């Protein structure tokens, strides 16, 4: 069993078996974290370029730690201080990185499909760390890993993704991945934040979280992305909190085993109340730990392809 592509562009393009392989391989990497030496050598001598066109703390830090714990060298390129501000195109940036013999390029970009374009241009393995509102595959994988760890299996779980489905790449990666793994997926949010024809992705649309909270196993709460001025799409943040915010009161109606997830960073008091965020059912900080292990697993599995590059 192996990954078919040299790149990880989205969960839409992975088979159930490939997702399973990534999740299985994550376990031994997670076990490393309890050791005093958390570093292992399989990517020794490889270079991982982290190319971010959008601000990020946790995803960038997570990829950097994952690469470093596999003994790869990392190079961080922040666009605000790079030649991109001088007008260099993505393809030219890719060619430059190729000339520097990068083995992996981890890219985050505001435009959907940016990672695909880069993957076609360079020989290096391209990992999509978020492209516009399209996909964020490593987040989808770490969410699934966390669910599998808690429930033993994803198949049959009822998972609700709550919030701004319209702009969320996390939502789309979760939907693709969870459906492949046999979960039942709901999307919940104000009608202005639920895209048209989302049912075609095999999800159930719901406009009131209270109606379904009782049957859910997992609620994955999305951030209200103020930077995308979504506030104009519903009356007020206060009203959003009242209807879609996950609160203590709502937990009273749910299963005792309900898992609370959030990709971060959280807006406490808007999509999630502080009490819920810090409750025992919340696995939000574990998601961060699992994120590093999942990214190590992906770098490791793609590493075999990267070693075949003939520069």
């Amino acid at each position, binding site marked *: 069993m192996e990954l078919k592509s040299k790149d990880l562009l989205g969960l839409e393009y992975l088979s159930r078996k490939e997702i399973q392989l990534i999740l299985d391989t994550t*376990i031994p990497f997670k*076990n490393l974290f309890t050791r*005093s*030496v958390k570093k292992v050598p399989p990517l*020794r001598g490889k270079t991982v370029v982290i190319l971010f066109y959008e601000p990020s703390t946790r995803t960038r830090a997570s990829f950097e730690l994952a690469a470093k714990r596999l003994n790869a060298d990392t190079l961080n390129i922040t666009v605000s201080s790079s030649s991109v501000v001088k007008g260099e195109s993505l393809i030219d940036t890719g060619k430059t990185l190729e000339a520097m013999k990068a083995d992996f390029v981890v890219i985050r970009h505001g435009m959907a499909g940016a990672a695909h374009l880069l993957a076609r241009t360079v020989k290096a393995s391209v990992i999509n760390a978020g492209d516009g509102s399209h996909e964020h595959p490593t987040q989808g994988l770490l969410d699934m890993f966390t669910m599998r760890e808690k429930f033993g299996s994803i198949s049959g779980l009822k998972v609700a993704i709550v919030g701004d489905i319209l702009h969320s790449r996390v939502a789309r990666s979760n939907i693709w991945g969870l459906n492949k793994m046999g979960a039942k997926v709901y999307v919940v949010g104000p009608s202005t934040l639920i895209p048209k024809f989302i049912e075609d992705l095999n999800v159930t649309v719901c406009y009131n979280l209270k109606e379904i909270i009782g049957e859910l196993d997992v609620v994955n709460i999305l951030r209200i992305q103020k930077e995308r001025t979504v506030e104009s799409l519903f009356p007020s943040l206060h009203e959003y909190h009242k209807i879609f915010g996950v609160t203590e009161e709502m937990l009273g109606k749910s299963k005792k085993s309900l898992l609370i997830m959030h990709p971060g960073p959280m807006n406490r008091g808007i999509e999630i109340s502080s009490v819920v965020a810090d409750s025992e059912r919340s696995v939000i900080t574990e998601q961060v730990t699992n994120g590093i292990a999942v990214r190590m697993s992906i770098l490791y599995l793609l590493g*075999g392809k990267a*070693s075949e590059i003939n520069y």
Partner: protein
Amino acid sequence: MKKNIIMNEKEIYRAIKRMSHEIVEKNYAMKNLVMIGIQTEGVFLARRIAKEIENIEGKKIPVGVLDITFYRDDADSIANQPKVRETNIPFNIKNKVIVLVDDVLFAGRTVRAALDGIMDFGRPKIIRLAVLVDRGLRELPIRPDFVGKKITTTPKDRIVVELKETKKNDRVILQVKPG
């Protein structure tokens, strides 16, 4: 392909028993003695040796599990990454006497990787090597301290160790390619 059974159940049992006695005979401080088995067959053998030592000395010997995949030296030459298995060393190895256990000793590269892996857990006092079969043809300066059976092979031969933990019988098979 010619298949020869070079060790049967009884011979494997005797070899393990003798190796266990040899380890005890070395007079390591029993409270510092631990076993680490290399995935997969090495783990079963390590557990069997630990059990034999317990029978002889009346003391339980801790057994750790080591997967050497991360430490291989051929990561650059294989396109499909090998499957990563569990590593679990549930004790502190600092100042311990470790008996590293594997099924077959061949080029010595697995043992080299295992030594790197162990060192990431701490600094043991001594590491000794126990193998069920030593087939020669070393590529690295590594030698075993406790050997079940030593045989001469050619590079094309294959040695397969089957143990009851996962297979039907205990046996060691030598597969000789004709020509």
